[in-house]
């Protein structure tokens, strides 16, 4: 049995998205900037897609800028706020410790250029406290950027409350909603969001396309100079097939958001309930403020990469925050941010579901994970020492 449970990494492109895209390769292939009819038809479709995306967040079409993905949208949002702040001599940013690297690395680069950043702690449930954000805001703060939902542990942040505070304090508020868009309801007006990043491939759209919502009055700074596409804010001939595919996928996701959330969260809860029976395991992240599709657990005494490879052999595609999979010596900064010790964080497993997963697939995971954990524990000197009492259990 093959079970794809890595939907937070990327999703399968939906049939709706593929069908929407296909005519744009050989029929509606004009350049939206061209004045002839083929070009103008393409332009109309581009604007329809913009309208579709805007509606999904209660935004206006002219507030949507298409990008190459979530990373680009994050980069542009942050740089924009810094440039707007410069004019008022505001050089401070508030963010959190567990943002995606698209945000964190951008902030680190800016720190080298003299911008000050406060990385607010998250609690052990992986949720940032609104008061902590409020008290980190200073007179010279030009931006608050807090992710909507965390990509590893799936925790949802109090975005509306943070938005209200930013509005009151007159600070620009950006949220990386890459893991939230199409999965939970987002209303940029109600939530006082000034800028928001999304990425097509996280909700069954194509890869390499995303969007930045920037409220009227936000003066975007270009990352890419060139032609006048995207109202001069993002040069380059639009990737129309991908944009149209993303819009179709997003609409489908948003139209079905409650139905899918109900179905997927039931599968999630079953997984959490059953896998928690494994001794010395822990569920990471708040159980209530959580996207419907995320399961993240640690199993003591084993390492995540070998767990993933074994699961892959059993047909299960998953992910981990171990050092070996994070590509650095340290395990995931997210798991460390919620206070897990290194040795526990190495044994993490993320299963991220979609509405395509079936009950049978979930049962396969429930059967397989305990077997693999047991097998790896049997050959683990750490587990041996824990069993003999030479080491103390942490979880």
């Amino acid at each position, binding site marked *: 049995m093959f079970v794809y449970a890595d939907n937070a990494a990327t999703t399968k492109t939906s049939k709706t998205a593929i069908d929407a895209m296909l005519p744009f390769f050989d029929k509606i292939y004009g350049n939206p900037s061209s004045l002839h009819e083929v070009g103008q038809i393409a332009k109309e479709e581009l604007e329809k897609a913009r309208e579709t995306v805007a509606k999904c967040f209660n935004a206006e079409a002219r507030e949507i800028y298409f990008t190459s993905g979530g990373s680009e949208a994050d980069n542009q949002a942050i740089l924009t706020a810094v440039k707007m702040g410069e004019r008022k001599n505001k050089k401070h940013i508030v963010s959190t410790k567990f943002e995606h690297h698209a945000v964190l690395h951008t902030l680190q680069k800016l720190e080298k250029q003299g911008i000050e950043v406060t990385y607010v702690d998250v609690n052990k449930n992986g949720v940032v406290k609104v008061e902590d954000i409020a008290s980190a805001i200073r007179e010279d703060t030009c931006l608050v950027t807090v992710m909507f939902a965390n990509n590893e542990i799936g925790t949802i942040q109090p975005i509306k409350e943070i938005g209200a505070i930013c509005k009151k304090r007159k600070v620009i508020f950006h949220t990386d909603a890459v893991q939230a868009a199409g999965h939970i309801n987002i209303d940029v007006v109600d939530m006082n969001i000034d800028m928001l990043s999304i990425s097509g491939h996280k909700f069954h759209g194509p890869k390499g396309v995303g969007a930045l919502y920037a409220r009227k009055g936000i003066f975007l700074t270009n990352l890419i100079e060139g032609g006048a596409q995207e109202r001069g804010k993002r040069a380059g001939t639009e990737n129309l097939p991908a944009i149209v595919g993303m819009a179709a996928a997003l609409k489908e996701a948003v139209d079905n958001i409650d139905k899918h959330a109900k179905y997927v969260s039931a599968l999630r809860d079953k997984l959490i309930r059953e896998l928690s029976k494994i001794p010395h395991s822990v569920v990471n992240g708040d159980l209530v403020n959580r996207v419907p599709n995320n399961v993240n657990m640690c199993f003591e*005494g*084993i*390492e*995540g*990469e*070998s767990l993933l*490879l074994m699961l892959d*052999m059993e047909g299960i595609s998953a992910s981990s925050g*171990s*050092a*070996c999979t994070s*590509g650095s*010596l*340290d*395990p995931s900064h997210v798991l460390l941010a919620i206070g897990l*010790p*290194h*040795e526990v964080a*190495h044994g993490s497993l993320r299963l991220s579901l979609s509405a395509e997963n079936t009950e049978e697939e979930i049962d396969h995971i429930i059967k397989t994970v305990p077997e693999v954990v047991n097998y790896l524990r*049997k*050959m*683990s*000197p*750490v*587990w*041996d020492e824990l069993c003999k009492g030479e080491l103390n259990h942490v979880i």
Partner: protein
Amino acid sequence: MLYSKKVMDHFKNPRNVGEIENADGIGEVGNAKCGDIMRIYIKVDNNIITDVKFMTFGCGSAIATSSMATEMIKGKSVDEALELSNKAVVEALDGLPTAKIHCSVLAEEAVRAAIKDYYDKNGIEYDKEKFKDCNCAHCHA
């Protein structure tokens, strides 16, 4: 594919997993904080390593290198086993990704640690210079 066929073979079917009761030497290296620990047990008879077993906490390549290293020293003399280099382990596995080379260093260190323990337990003289602790960047980051 991240790993060679050989690495996957040793990961899927690790040789010599387990422990040896009354082992003549036990070596443990690495630390859980970094994400890998290897423990190697040896049984020595007449200066020959007659049996060897390992337990490893770590990624796929950590398990595969432990497995390969135990296979390479089984039946060898203690002196031959001391000559085992991490490079030889990497070659025997048809290579490792650069980021995983430290696993092979750990395997070499684990073998040496087990032999040192054997020497210590049996009062055998040895050159202390040859048994320095690992100080690769990985374990001391």
